[in-house]
């Protein structure tokens, strides 16, 4: 559906990058935002009647897993991209824990080219490995991967345990002015653990992963970033202790930012044994709620929400981690970690808006200008509706009620703890570079 021009009429435009929250029109021409204002006149080819809808910059995800190459039974770049588009995303950054891992220019190039040819209606930006084979032994050729188009470096689920090597990695990344996207986990402390080391772990007789496993690495990597001047982005932060360290590091000027995931912001360890959909069911071991870092406690959620409201946490990342059904349909201790998150991120987070914990504009900033700050502008300015930038726009119906059903998910990974859950708030349209990537049938459009 290639259109030279699109007019979005009467939307509530929320653009936190410009502090805009007003009802107006947006005109898109040649893939760029031409102008926005009231009563725009245009002979546009397509008009979207957006009365009652929110229009905001396209969502950006700093952390997802597309599984290709190597794990195509879990997800492909194409199926993951389709799910992301449905979730309102126009830019997604995929992690390098593929097989082979994205630890050289050729694999980075493979992801970019595959995405560009199969999924042209979304921008896919790969993250490269910090170490070869994600083995934590030798650094990758970072500058060559940067030239091939990676946007940062991470060993994600296999964090660099060797502190000296991490120091050197930060120096290299600092030289390239590129971020380290850091999964913080002390592997000795988390070894053999499958859920938060709290009362549910004690109840189930399964080894827990203590908050200290995350916090000790947050402390180490803040110290290294402070020493090296590297840009450090701490991803999927889950504990109160981490938040406090990040807050104080930012206050003294360390270049550290952080994201949290929709599931860590809305679910606790108790979700593993009790489904809100079946409160009276007997004890369950819900592998769909098994994720790393693990779902924590209500106190941690409170700290994460507070950190969002005081600007300590500036983005939300899905950590979309799709798995095949057999990876989850098994013993809890053998089940894979991860939640398929693209299609529920916005709706799950809307529960925080509807309950008054965060403002809608704050939520949108977490999904747009917050993550955009971590990305370099080399791949286009994102996260804003300023005239002249690439027209990435997401349309939202904040009051639309819907229920997540497995059969309707576009991701190959149906591993969601939200299956069966009723939501209020839905993504109703995704426009990428001036092209309609997705539009819900409820939205009136005319040609």
């Amino acid at each position, binding site marked *: 559906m290639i259109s030279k021009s699109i007019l979005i009429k009467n939307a509530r435009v929320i653009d936190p990058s410009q502090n805009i929250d007003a009802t107006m029109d947006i005109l898109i021409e040649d893939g760029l935002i031409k102008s926005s204002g009231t009563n725009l006149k245009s002979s546009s080819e397509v008009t979207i009647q957006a009365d009652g809808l929110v229009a905001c910059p396209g969502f950006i995800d700093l952390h997802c897993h597309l599984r290709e190459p190597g794990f195509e039974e879990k997800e492909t770049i194409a199926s993951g991209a389709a799910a992301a588009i449905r979730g309102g995303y126009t830019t997604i950054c995929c992690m390098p824990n593929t097989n082979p891992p994205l630890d050289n220019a050729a694999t980075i190039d493979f992801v970019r080219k595959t995405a560009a040819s199969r999924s042209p209606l979304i921008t896919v930006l790969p993250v490269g490995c910090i170490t070869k084979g994600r083995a934590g032994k030798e650094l990758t050729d970072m500058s060559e991967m940067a030239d091939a188009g990676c946007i940062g470096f991470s060993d994600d689920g296999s964090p660099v345990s060797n502190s000296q090597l991490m120091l050197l990695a930060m120096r290299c990344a600092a030289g390239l002015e590129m971020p380290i996207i850091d999964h913080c986990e002390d592997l000795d402390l988390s070894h053999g653990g499958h859920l938060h080391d*709290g*009362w549910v772990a004690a*109840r189930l*007789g399964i080894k827990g992963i203590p908050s200290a496993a995350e916090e000790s690495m947050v402390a180490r990597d803040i110290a290294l970033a402070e020493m090296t001047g590297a840009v450090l982005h701490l991803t999927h932060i889950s504990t109160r202790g981490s938040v406090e360290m990040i807050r104080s590091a930012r206050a003294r000027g360390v270049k550290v930012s952080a994201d949290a995931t929709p599931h860590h912001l809305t679910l606790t360890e108790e979700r593993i044994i009790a489904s809100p959909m079946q409160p009276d069911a007997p004890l369950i071991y819900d592998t769909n709620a098994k994720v790393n870092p693990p779902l924590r406690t209500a106190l941690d959620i409170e700290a994460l929400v507070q950190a969002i409201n005081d600007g300590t946490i500036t983005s939300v990342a899905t950590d979309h981690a799709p798995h095949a059904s057999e990876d989850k349909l098994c013993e809890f*201790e053998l089940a894979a970690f991860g939640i398929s998150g693209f299609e529920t991120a916005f709706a799950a987070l809307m529960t925080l808006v509807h309950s008054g914990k965060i403002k809608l504009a704050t939520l949108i900033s977490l999904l747009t200008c917050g993550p955009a700050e971590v990305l370099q502008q080399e791949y286009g300015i994102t996260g804003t509706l300023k005239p002249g930038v690439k027209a990435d726009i997401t349309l939202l119906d904040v009051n639309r009620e819907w229920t997540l059903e497995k059969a309707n998910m576009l991701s190959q990974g149906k591993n969601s703890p939200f299956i069966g859950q009723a939501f209020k708030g839905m993504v109703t349209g995704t426009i990428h570079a001036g092209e309609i990537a997705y539009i819900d049938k409820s939205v009136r459009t005319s040609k």
Partner: protein
Amino acid sequence: MERIVSPNEPKLSTAGQESLPPLSIGLWRHRNVLDLDDFLSDEIALVFEIADGMVEVLARDVKKVPTLRGRTIAIMFYEPSTRTRASFELAAKYLGADTVSLDSAKSSVAKGESLIDSLRTLQALEVNTIIIRHPCSGAPYIAAQHLQTSVINAGDGCHAHPSQGLLDLYTIKRKFGDLKGRKVVIIGDIMHSRVARSNIWGTRSTGLHVVLCAPKTFIPQGMPEMLEKCGLDHVSIEHNLDHALEGADVVMPLRLQKERQQSGFISSIREYVRLYQVNGERLKKAGPDVIVMHPGPMNEGVEISHDVAYCNSSLIEQQVTNGVAIRMALLYLVSGVRN
């Protein structure tokens, strides 16, 4: 408790063999026995009442009764075990059931079949009851979730061992009768013990006070919160064994797995023995009627001294016999419940 004879109650044959006296399964509602957290006091009392009849059968010279004749019980062990396995197998055989044993090493598990597929196959083979032992916590719950067949948990990971919990409580009950105010001390590796967890649930609302006594390395971080959240206020935690043993009526050391030393949970066996071994000297602090129990297998000289294991207060062998009776009672009860 009101007695309702279930329409599905197994028919007790009287022809030929000497049979059980007529038993009612009363209000029994459990298709599965997964843990004791959902057992009401009346239900535990019913298990014990039926176990009393089974104890009588076990005392006979010819033990076999035809109660479960024609029923098939699958014994599926994914973890090495001799005692529990033999106990369940004999329980099934004494009741006249046919048994089929599936051993993880020899079965399709070795060929990479998933747990759910193995279970579905057993169900398709029309077995009546599946007894499962598995190294992963929660595995029997998967079985219960995916099958219509009755499932009995014979021990899952570090989570639960309900038949052991029942036989322990039965042994205590037979000794003391009234349990109100009696003190049970469970000593050792609480963290990795499914026996301790099932005992915690089984002793709820019995009047027993349970003390978990262990080094701090063997108490899960979330244990105090778990006790509070689950309303298990009859349980307390104590790290000093001499304090814990004061006035104890039941002393139950747990097996210390020697590999825990390699993982650093204890510095040495010697240190553990010094602080936590139940020996004759320490047992003097306990109450006058104290009994010693052990879920087995014992490491004599480690968690329990030889003299204590075989002293007059030791009911360890009695536990083994009671275990068969309890398992017979459970097999009898679940065989009367269909969906």
